[in-house]
């Protein structure tokens, strides 16, 4: 058994192929995602992030190329595609707009019920999922439409978590939330991964968030895979990232500016700790 939970081989996708409005959304993507990683996907708007992740559970089929889940082609047997969707759970951008049941309980149970689990197992999963997202059980009997925006978002995320997918994918889970809501959502995703030891993929605009959370970073640029590696590796390309129009973490930006001014500093720094060390080193070196 390979160590890679998801692999893509020369994956490309063209929307509306053969018409005047043809778009090459992703091109020749080759990547291997190890089990248990928390992958942060970044890239400018329209770089193909959402398109890429929709290939991971077979919502889209590549115009060419293959997607392997645990080493086997997800399109090899079409009747198993639904199983793939249970193993790779995607939570889309603004997931609160997909809520439809009368109660939170029923909505969260939608996924597990589709998996044909027993009633007691469904019940267990719903309660587990709702606690993952930091809501107490009094929410279960409420109508999802009566909740606040942030709570709705969390209920929708719970709906995907309740399926306990091997790979949990979240497309911009913090879009449109206030700073406090963002932090809550990011923390609960982190906790979920630590508890379940599953692989998590987060699409985000914010380098800041990604640098705090992720173990690996995947950078998309103009439909192509620009970088895939550890946070350190990717942020060592800070200048290139900036050219791609990505807002690098503030701290990295600071060091980039220092370098421009002629100081001999590293530019792959994104945490306060490392920044402190680097600046101390600089001071000791007597440059200032």
């Amino acid at each position, binding site marked *: 058994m390979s160590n890679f939970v998801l692999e893509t081989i020369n994956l490309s996708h063209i929307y509306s192929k053969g018409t005047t409005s043809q778009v090459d959304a992703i091109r020749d993507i080759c990547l291997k995602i190890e089990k248990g990683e928390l992958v942060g996907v970044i890239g400018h708007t329209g770089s193909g992030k959402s398109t890429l992740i*929709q290939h991971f*559970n077979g*919502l889209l089929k590549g115009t060419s190329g293959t997607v392997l889940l645990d080493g086997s082609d997800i399109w090899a047997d079409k009747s198993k595609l*639904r199983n793939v*969707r*249970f193993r790779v*759970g*995607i*939570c*889309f951008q603004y*997931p609160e*707009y*997909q*809520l*439809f049941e009368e109660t939170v309980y029923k909505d969260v149970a*939608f*996924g597990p019920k*589709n*998996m044909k689990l027993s009633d007691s197992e469904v019940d267990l999963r719903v309660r587990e999922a709702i606690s993952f997202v930091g809501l107490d059980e009094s929410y279960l009997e409420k109508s999802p*439409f009566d909740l606040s925006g942030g709570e709705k978002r969390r209920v929708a995320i719970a*709906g*995907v978590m309740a*399926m306990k997918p091997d790979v949990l994918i979240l497309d911009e889970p913090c879009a449109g939330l206030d700073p406090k809501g963002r932090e809550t959502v990011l923390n609960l995703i982190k906790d979920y991964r630590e508890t379940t030891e599953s692989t998590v993929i987060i699409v985000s605009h914010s380098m800041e968030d990604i640098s705090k959370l992720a173990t690996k970073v995947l950078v998309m640029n103009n439909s192509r895979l620009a970088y895939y590696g550890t946070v350190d590796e990717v942020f060592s390309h800070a200048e290139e990232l900036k050219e791609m129009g990505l807002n690098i973490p503030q701290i990295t930006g600071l060091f980039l500016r220092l370098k421009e001014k002629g100081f001999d500093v590293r530019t792959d720094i994104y945490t306060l700790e490392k920044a402190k060390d680097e600046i101390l080193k600089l001071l000791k070196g007597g440059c200032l």
Partner: protein
Amino acid sequence: MISDITIGQYYKAESFIHKLDARAKIILTVLFIALIFLCKNFISLALTLVMVILSVLLSSVPVKMYIKSLKPIIPIVLFTAVLNMFYTGGENVVFSFKGITLTSEGIFTAIFLAARIVLLIIASSILTYTTVPTMLTDAIEKLLSPLKLFKVPVQSWAMMMTLALRFIPTLIEEIEKITNAQKSRGADFESGRLLQRIKAVIPIIIPLFVSSFRRASDLAYAMSCRCYTGADTRTRMKQMKMRIRDFVCIIIFITSIAGVILLNNLFGAVI
């Protein structure tokens, strides 16, 4: 894919027909339909066909686009044509076998039926491919404005129509998004009995309604913020103007109708 539907799809180009006044184009389309249904023999049908081909060529819209709009209805056309072929009675039996008879009247009916439907679709496609939907509703509003005398709220209707057209692509996009989200949670839209399938769309319909209502109320706020108080007092930024070429086209079409009627009488009707 659901987004392949081509209702009211505008094809951007700078052709003669694109530049015609939208009101003229609606009138021309009505005349076209009259033309198509007045043909009663092959010579008048040929004249109509020439008119259609000329218009298609003048529209600068690729023939491929017209074929695309015809594709979905071809099975229906063939089916009705074949049915008509066998069920139309007549004296001139061409062929008879085991109680099935084929008359020349039947064959002609089938040909005319198929030709009329196809031409009808093409004629209306010319209109929708060459006219922006909002121009179309504006034009309908103008053409129906005499009804205002009878206190019919033509302008409000036109506004509703414009908004409805505007939101068709948005709704289609929304349906796709919600469907993908529910599929990701294991919703199954492809298998099961009829009742199960009907139930399966609930997770799509409800979020769709919720977001449509939200969108409608947002839109209403946005419109009142821009002082929309009803349609009657609005003026237009782009004034519509009938030019000589619009009148020339209408005259050509009326002449053709006269021509078709003449040809029908000269050569006799076959159906």
